[in-house]
């Protein structure tokens, strides 16, 4: 594998590019020094640098992808997916009903029984390698489409979502003929037909996290993309066609919540995988109780970012900004609670505000944009409502001067201070660019506060002292701990939560366990 084939490591990426570094250099301690980049203390002006959308040819209407073909949904229903940055409609997309889900599950079963299950692992793997390659080849188009449908900045789709999705297929392709080494016995078997439901925050990447391990392990899949971001999944269906994937191995059934319910409760599904809200996850777990079906859930979080007084503060500022403003904060593992040691809190917040003032919010297709549009009006309303509780409960909100575009769904980067553990903004997942700041005096207090949540997905630790980092990481009840970094992801690295953040892991050897018996 040559070096240009892998997603760029964060250090190789251009300033502020994907991998989660929002709007600045990789954590190198220069975050606030740029404040003085002009004598008047103002940040540099940037000329517009829009990515062209001509690389994407939108269809007027999108059909579901079942048994290797796009064919109209039997339901006859459609929804309109729109660009959250300007609210202009992008396309009509089918809403799959019961008959469509039935057909997709039946196609997946047929493909499982007649083709995929018994295909030698080495051959299965080659299809996944092909998919990875086609995704790389169509990367530009995919990135622009994802940004149009989702609202996230092009530099994130271009440098993070799409290359990481391709990397997941590349990684899992190699597992297909090595499953005996996955730790599930010498002759592990696939589970069967997988029903998979993914969220709108990383539409293509979450699809890759679901489909790549399922296929590598010999399963077939029916996937439902999110209601507001179906387009990249349907583009992925084209990728499957282009890769020559046998019909029925991957089926894409766009639709709404009801389509998802039909899919996860379908008697023909052997395994359900869901990424989304804890509330919906609970409902799925209830639905599947007593059925014997396998279930993995990747749910909400309220990640704590702990900054000790000896941390490299500018690096920590970059990490905290990246932790909560990456992807507009629509990240289940976002570091949405900042726990900063009291002795440095004031100085840290000053640097944080200075750094936030440099964030550029606006046109997601502009290559300089740090913060794009909120994906939907409904999500914007949720963010507003929760932020309002923060004010109502006595916390103090601050946002940098940040003109919002007139059209589209926007929320300015916001930091709440004067927050206590009882405040809703400190307890509930906001899923938006909103940071709640709490302080602590001792490491024990930091850990106790970090763990004081029913969630347990992610946490961050910032300290220059190795033993303190390890001590803290050991005590954090979270599935992923980032120390002196945040929001790093890799196909080889297991991701998933403790407690009410769900169960099961995605990525790495551990991720295969969900798809093997």
């Amino acid at each position, binding site marked *: 594998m040559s070096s240009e084939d*892998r*997603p760029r*490591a*964060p*250090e190789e990426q251009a300033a502020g590019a994907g*991998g989660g570094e929002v709007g600045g250099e990789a*954590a190198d301690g220069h975050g606030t020094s740029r404040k003085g980049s002009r004598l008047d203390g103002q940040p540099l002006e940037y000329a517009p640098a829009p990515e062209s959308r001509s690389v994407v040819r939108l269809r007027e209407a999108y059909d579901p992808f079942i048994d290797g073909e796009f064919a109209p949904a039997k339901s006859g229903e459609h929804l309109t997916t729109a660009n959250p940055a300007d609210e202009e409609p992008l396309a009509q997309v089918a809403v799959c009903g019961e008959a469509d889900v039935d057909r997709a599950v039946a196609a997946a079963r047929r493909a499982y029984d007649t083709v995929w299950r018994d295909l030698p692992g080495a051959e299965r793997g080659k299809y996944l390698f092909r998919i990875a390659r086609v995704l790389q080849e169509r990367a530009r188009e995919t990135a622009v489409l994802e940004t149009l449908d989702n609202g996230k900045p092009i530099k994130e789709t271009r440098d993070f979502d799409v290359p990481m999705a391709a*990397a997941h297929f590349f990684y899992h392709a190699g597992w297909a003929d090595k499953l005996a080494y996955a*730790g599930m016995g010498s002759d592990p078997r696939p589970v069967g037909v997988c029903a998979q439901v993914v969220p709108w925050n990383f539409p293509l990447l979450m699809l890759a996290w679901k489909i790549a391990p399922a296929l590598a392990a010999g399963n077939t899949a029916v996937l439902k993309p999110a209601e507001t971001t179906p387009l990249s999944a349907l583009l992925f269906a084209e990728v499957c066609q282009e890769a020559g994937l046998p019909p029925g191995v991957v089926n894409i059934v766009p639709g709404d919540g009801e389509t998802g319910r039909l899919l996860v409760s379908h008697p023909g599904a052997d395994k359900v995988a869901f990424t989304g809200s*804890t509330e919906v*996850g*609970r409902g799925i*777990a*209830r639905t599947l*109780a*007593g059925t*014997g079906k396998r279930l993995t*859930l990747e*749910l909400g979080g309220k990640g704590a970012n702990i900054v000790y007084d000896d941390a490299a503060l500018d690096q920590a500022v970059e990490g905290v900004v990246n932790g909560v403003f990456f992807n507009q904060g629509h990240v289940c593992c976002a570091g949405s609670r900042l726990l900063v040691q009291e002795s440095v809190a004031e100085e840290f917040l000053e640097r944080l505000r200075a750094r936030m003032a440099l964030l550029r919010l606006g046109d997601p297709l502009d290559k300089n944009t740090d913060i794009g549009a909120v994906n939907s009006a409904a999500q914007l309303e949720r963010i507003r409502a929760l932020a309002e509780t923060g004010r109502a409960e006595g916390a103090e909100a601050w946002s940098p001067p940040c003109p919002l575009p007139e059209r589209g769904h926007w929320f300015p980067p916001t930091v709440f201070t004067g927050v206590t553990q009882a405040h809703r903004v400190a307890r509930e997942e906001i899923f938006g660019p909103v940071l709640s700041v709490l302080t602590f005096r001792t490491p024990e207090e930091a850990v106790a506060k970090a763990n004081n949540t*029913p969630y*347990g997905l992610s946490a961050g630790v910032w300290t220059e002292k190795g033993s303190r*980092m390890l001590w803290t*990481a050991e005590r*954090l009840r*979270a*599935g*992923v*701990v*980032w*120390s*002196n*970094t945040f929001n*790093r992801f*890799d196909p*080889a*690295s*297991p*991701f*998933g939560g*403790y*407690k*009410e953040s*769900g*169960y099961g*892991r995605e990525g*790495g*050897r*551990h991720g295969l*366990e969900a798809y093997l018996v």
Partner: protein
Amino acid sequence: MSEHRHDGAAAPRVAVRKTHKLYIGGAFPRSESGRSYPVASADGEHLANAGMASRKDARDAVAAARKAFPGWAGRTAYNRGQVLYRAAEMMEGRRAQFAAELSAATGAGRPEAEREVSAAIDRWVYYAGWTDKAAQVLGGTNPVSGPYDNRSAPEPTGVVAVLAPQDAPLLGLVSVLAPVVAMGNTAVLVASERAPLPAVALAEVLATSDLPGGVANILTGRTAELAPPLAAHADVNALDLAGALDVAGAGDLAADLEEAAAETLKRVLRPDPAVEWEADPGLGRIRPFLETKTVWHPVGT
């Protein structure tokens, strides 16, 4: 004097019977409800009255298990292994008692009961050996494409509610409890409803095995009464439903418990009707009660 009859002959000694109590937080309380229930042998003979734990006892046991969790999970793996091995040693010293109780409970002949006692003791030894190996087998270094040190290691999930199998009152009991506590979880175990006496004897073994109080809590009573509050308890992280099969009058108890557990997204190990307790257990009962934690750190000068 009073210990001699006036005719000088010694009176037949009256045996000192045991009160079968619960085991919570390292102590042996009676049920706070004051209830007990009669336990009969396989052929219907009255053996003893066992404590009939209440929902309140179950909640107390969860509180004790939660309190014990950080300390037990924080022990070194080597130390946990030694404590589990100590439990085997203590059981070995009480072989005769366990064999007799097992015989009475299941109607098994003495040689068969002896064999099961041996298997149960050996199971403690088996899991004692896993404590400091599972992390290497299940964890490791992840080769990420960037300048990061990235490792995954298993950690105990927390408080595990365990329904011990109804029809394997000793080997089944040890087979479900040992893997849970081996890796640093703490347990609230509901003993076999029909044959709880071996579980009470096991509690006495654990109380003298250096297992810190609260790491294993053992309740006797009605499975259908105790399991639902445990399945719904917000401070219970996981549920082993081995004993949810064949509970008289409870309908599809396993499904109901799984549904209750969904509310707090507990990890649930479903019962396997075909389970063979004699078989090599492998990691099958260890893995479900572990969480994988992945830690990232940049590499640089």
